[in-house]
């Protein structure tokens, strides 16, 4: 409209017609029984639930001849054990007060906590971890607080976890049920028998949930990134495997071997610590498949070949690591893509990238060792029994990597600073000063 005013165009008849036809439509939408003013307050939005039952409104109109009064009357509540007398306002129709129980008493639900006899306890319920007194206390509290185990755990005199309390309560109830049943078939469908309580699984579930909830946004983003990268790698491997199998049956063995080796590297970081040179040897078979696929092209550009080789060589590394390799290249004053990509230059460039990858791996290892040495976070991951201590510490270090990924950049910073010292500040200082800012911006 405004544009038309500015342009001095005559307003055509069409929008006016629209305007005329709109208001009656709106008034039709207004439901009966609601005043226009009230309806206007809702902004014309349909409420999620019908706030007013139309039938009730109609009934009200029908019972016009009834005489309605509101009276302040005493009432009894069957949910109360004491005889406390309370009053409330009651709608009285034609002078007859309403009879029956208090309308909210039906919401007072209580749990039927099973009771066991001393005899039954001796026979079925003894547990070395629990005394009879404790069990009695537990059942008293369960009845008192209607199985609100968090409250029960809070009031319980001896220190037991919620899971332990639940486990005891449910196992006892279950044992009594089965013991009292005439045949096992009678109680087989009872929820207490059918669904057993698994304390260890609950503990693990809560731990995992807690871990997930304590993630920062940044960590979440990192996780998504890692998963996406993993997906990409596995897809690329699948594709390359498929193409190798279809085109070059001879090479497929070597290719799959390389892939296995690469997955072994990612799964267990200890492989790297044992053989630090594995990052150099692993991609060899991958580059072989790249060379094979380049050959199929019959003609290609040297720069394209380099790109493919770089990709193959870093396929086992994460997106973050690849970015750090590139950052290091820039810090060293080397172009990410060589300006003069001759065969020799490309080979050197590739070697440099591989060496940087090795360097970053070593830095990571150093950090794992640091984590190992300071037994960082040792306590939180010791729940799994039977895990050899070394593997566990490695696992903790592995978790560290995902949860505090920024710790890795410390190594990079340290490295950069050293390089700067050696090289003199001139060429690398702008890149150095850029880096922390860049990280901040991404946080």
């Amino acid at each position: 409209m405004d544009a038309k005013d500015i342009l001095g165009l005559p307003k055509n008849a069409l929008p006016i017609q629209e305007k005329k036809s709109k208001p009656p439509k709106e008034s039709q939408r207004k439901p009966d029984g609601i005043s226009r003013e009230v309806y206007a307050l809702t902004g014309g939005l349909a409420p999620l639930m019908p706030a007013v039952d139309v039938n009730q409104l109609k009934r009200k109109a029908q019972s016009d001849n009834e005489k309605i009064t509101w009276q302040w009357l005493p009432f009894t509540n069957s949910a109360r054990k004491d005889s406390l007398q309370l009053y409330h306002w009651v709608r009285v129709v034609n002078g007859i007060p309403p009879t029956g129980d208090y309308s909210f008493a039906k919401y007072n639900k209580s749990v039927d906590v099973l009771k066991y006899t001393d005899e039954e306890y001796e026979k079925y319920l003894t547990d070395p971890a629990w005394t009879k007194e404790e069990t009695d206390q537990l059942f008293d509290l369960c009845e008192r607080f209607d199985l609100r185990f968090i409250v029960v755990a809070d009031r319980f005199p001896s220190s037991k976890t919620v899971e332990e309390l639940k486990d005891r309560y449910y196992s006892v109830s279950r044992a009594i049920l089965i013991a009292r049943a005439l045949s096992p078939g009678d109680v087989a469908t009872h929820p207490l028998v059918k669904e057993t309580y698994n304390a260890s699984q609950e503990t693990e579930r809560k731990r995992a949930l807690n871990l997930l909830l304590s993630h920062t946004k940044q960590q979440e983003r990192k996780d998504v990134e890692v998963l996406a990268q993993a997906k990409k790698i596995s897809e690329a491997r699948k594709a390359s495997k498929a193409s190798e199998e279809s085109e070059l049956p001879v090479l497929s063995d070597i290719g799959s071997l390389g892939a296995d080796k690469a997955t072994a590297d990612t799964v267990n970081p200890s492989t790297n610590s044992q053989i630090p040179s594995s990052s150099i040897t692993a991609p060899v078979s991958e580059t072989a498949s790249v060379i094979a696929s380049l050959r199929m092209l019959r003609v290609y550009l040297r720069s394209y070949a380099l790109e493919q080789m770089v990709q193959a060589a870093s396929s086992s590394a994460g997106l973050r690591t690849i970015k750090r390799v590139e950052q290091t290249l820039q810090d060293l004053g080397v172009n990410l893509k060589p300006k003069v990509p001759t065969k020799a230059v490309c080979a050197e460039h590739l070697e440099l990238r591989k060496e940087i990858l090795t360097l970053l791996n070593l830095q990571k290892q150093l950090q794992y060792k640091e984590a190992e040495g300071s037994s960082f976070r040792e306590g939180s991951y010791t729940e799994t029994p039977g895990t050899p201590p070394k593997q566990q510490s490695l696992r903790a270090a592995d978790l560290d990597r995902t949860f505090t990924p920024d710790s890795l950049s410390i190594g990079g910073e340290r490295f950069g600073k050293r390089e700067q010292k050696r090289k003199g500040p001139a060429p690398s200082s702008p890149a150095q000063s850029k880096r922390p800012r860049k990280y901040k911006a991404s946080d």
Partner: protein
Amino acid sequence: MAQTVENDVQLEGNATESNLKPQRLKITRFSDDSDKKILLKRLKDVEISVPIVYGTIAFWLGRKATETQSHKWTVYVRGATNEDLGVVIKRAVFQLHPSFNNPVRVVESPPFELSECGWGEFEIAISLFFHNDVCEKQLDLYHHLKLYSEDESGPQSTKKPVVVETYNEIVFPDPSEDFYARVQKHPAVIVPRLPVTINLPSVLATNVEDLNEKRGDTKDHPLSQWFNNFSEADELLKLAAARQQVQAHIIKLRRQLSVIDGLPLQSWKPASGQ
């Protein structure tokens, strides 16, 4: 795809000698999909590369500049050392912005270049087609035409053009014997040495001179003073220096790691002071 049959090369010398030698050279019978079924002997594990430079040189027209024609520019593909590329490239197709008349320009002979006047920058697609014995597939290059310099804040000059060039190498893996024989002495092409045992057909060797007669090189090109020099040596030096730094650091880290491994965990402390 092509059905390939690999045979050992029947060498000129006696059979026993060829059996002793590693089977480096293999013939691939390559049956083409095209109507002409050419049988090409291919040299396995050999690659021929052609260093090229492609790009644009743009002159501002100064007083002569009009609204639609402010610059005169030339897009080209040249040999990195300004040698004649006609020995490998048969035809170059330049795809200009659709606003040009006949935006697809075909250049059938070297030098592979094209001059135009215009006012806007855009991406030029360059498709290279090769001689029959070289490669039946085309190669696409992309170059962004630059008319306005970025790094110089001063006014545009009619004397100094804006030059943007890219160095690259066209690689032909497993080239045909004919191609190898034809270009092995040509300065535009980097050809690896073959083992002495291999004899190539010498029939086509004269072709090199035939092509040279056309004088498709860009050595005396009117724009040659603006051509960039691409120094492989500089690049290699830079890389070597970087590798040295990284290697030194690797050694340092390995030493740190071995120090940590040598100590019991309890007494270990961060080696940040090192």
